[in-house]
């Protein structure tokens, strides 16, 4: 399966890009995706972030169903 991943703020800085296509073998929960992200970008381990699936903040147990737009959201700073 493959889906779109977007990075924002300090996470885009760490990734060095603002979006990419993620390829995974078989089904993936949000929690499993998080582990893969942290393996690819170890500097994100020190950062707090939430994962949005199709623009909704998601829990780790949720199974990602394609097509999906996944976003890594650092702490909000609006206002």
């Amino acid at each position, binding site marked *: 399966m493959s889906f779109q991943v*977007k990075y*924002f*703020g*300090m996470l885009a800085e760490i990734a060095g890009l603002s979006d990419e296509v993620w390829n995974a073998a078989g089904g993936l929960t949000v929690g499993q995706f998080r582990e893969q992200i942290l393996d690819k970008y170890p500097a994100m381990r020190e950062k707090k972030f939430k994962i*949005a699936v199709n*623009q909704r903040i998601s829990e780790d147990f949720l199974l990602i169903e394609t097509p999906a737009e996944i*976003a890594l*959201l*650092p*702490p*909000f*700073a*609006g*206002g």
Partner: protein
Amino acid sequence: MEKAHKPKKVFIQGPISPDFVAKSIASHQSKTGIGAHAIFLGQIRADQKEGGPVTGIDYTAYEEMAEQAFYDIREAAFAKFELTCMHIYHSLGLVPTGEISLFVFVSSPHRRAAFEASEYIVEEIKANVPIFGKELIGEAGQHVWKENK
């Protein structure tokens, strides 16, 4: 109060000017059921950091999700409070120190609803809208990522 309200444009490129605030106020003078306006303005502080003072904040957002979050906040506020009008504007891009990045404007027949809605909306924006802020520090091009508490 159950009717849906049209999504409105929230994001503004760069700072929000005092004149823009004045025009918004003036445009409500024909709405003669209004007795109270509450306005909140967020202004960029020159906080002192290692490396120097903050000179500005560069805002980015997950825009599609942010627009939806603003819409949800609007709907919730209209349902909770007796409001005649509500407008929310937030900057994207660079806002220098001393300039305004957030403008929340609520109008009601009575002051209580205006006060309560203003505070509710600002807290909701700070907590639930995916906006990110890069605080620019000093002269040397340093930065720190802002985090709402």
